[in-house]
């Protein structure tokens, strides 16, 4: 049970870390125009939050891409 909990936690964090790097590099300015010219320290500062909340941000990034595709 403990191993399963830790594995799920580690898997979630690992996916979050991979997504997080992509998100702070490209995605953040897609979902929020105010982040367009944001410096890299800002992007690193939001990275832990991105790793924690990656499903929500993935959904928002996906929506932003779809909206841009329609436009």
């Amino acid at each position, binding site marked *: 049970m403990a191993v399963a909990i*830790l594995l799920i936690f580690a898997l979630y964090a690992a996916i979050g870390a991979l997504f997080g790097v992509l998100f702070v590099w490209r995605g953040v300015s897609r979902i929020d125009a105010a982040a367009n010219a944001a410096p890299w320290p800002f992007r690193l500062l939001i990275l832990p939050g991105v790793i924690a909340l990656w499903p929500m941000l993935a959904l928002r990034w996906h929506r932003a891409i779809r909206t841009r595709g329609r436009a």
Partner: protein
Amino acid sequence: MSAGYVTVQWNRHKRIYDACVVGGIAVYLGVFFAVGKTLYAAPNAISDEILAMRALGTCAFLLLNIILCIGPAARLDRRCLPLLYNRRHLGVATFLVALAHAVIAIGFYHGFGNVSPFISLLTSNTNYGSLSAFPFQILGVLALLILFLMAATSHDFWLKNLGAPAWKRLHMLVYVAYGLLVMHVALGFLQTQRSPWLAALVGAGVVTVSSLHLIAGLREYRKDGRRTHCSQSSGTHAGETWVDVGSVDDIAEQRGSTVTIGESERIALFRTNGCISATTNVCAHQGGPLGEGKIIDGCITCPWHGWQYRPADGQSPPPFTERIATYRVRVVGRRVEIDPAPLPPGTAVEPARIAEDLK
């Protein structure tokens, strides 16, 4: 305010605040260590790791108590508002201190076995049915996860992208973290140490936090009740309902005031340059009470973090883009009347001019 993100919005006030926080933590840890070394001299000496663990743990708990006291204290006494201004940095500092405590504790108690420290943490004690042997460390880990989530989402980027209500709900989890930490300390440290002064300190913290919240809540409740009672409809004209909310003399020049009409949200009134304007009382940033703020550089300025809005249209001055709801307002004699229907955020409303002989 969201014209473009910067890493940390430092200014002179915040630098001083942060220097005090870092200095205060360093002094606390130093004094705790020095006193601990003296109290626990040979033959009752304890290891540096245990002393560091206790120093960091008590420091984090104390900081969390301070954080929770700042909100109600600022409601009760405006002199506490500067403490509220940069509370987010205090929260991040609390998380870092708690993290250091957890790293040392997990390493010291679970790091020397054959299994992973995290598996050991979850499996070494499973007496969930026993109060006297409850695995209190799990409670600390859960509290730490909440503090992490709050620290990680403390930047304005998260406030904007989660939305103010969701962000606020997320950060209200601090009370859950506090409850978990009280149990963590009560079931763990107090059980093993049985120290009366420590029990008294934890109890004093809980009583202080609870009392301040209760007093501030009661005061706000009474204030709302009084204002609701005073307001009365003064007639309808052309689809507008005007409600008398008090005298122009109730509002000082360049200052705000709040009124509540019926069960509606609080409305903030401002008096500047001989005119009265009305907006929502809720700041778009973190829901700060705008009516308790003042007019600075011609703008309504939130007392919590200094976000600004123009009184005439509820819009932040360029290049910022935040907007708040405005209300139609008029002055009849010395009385201020409001149409309680909020207008869409950023709607321009002609401020009501106070007649020259009444100013």
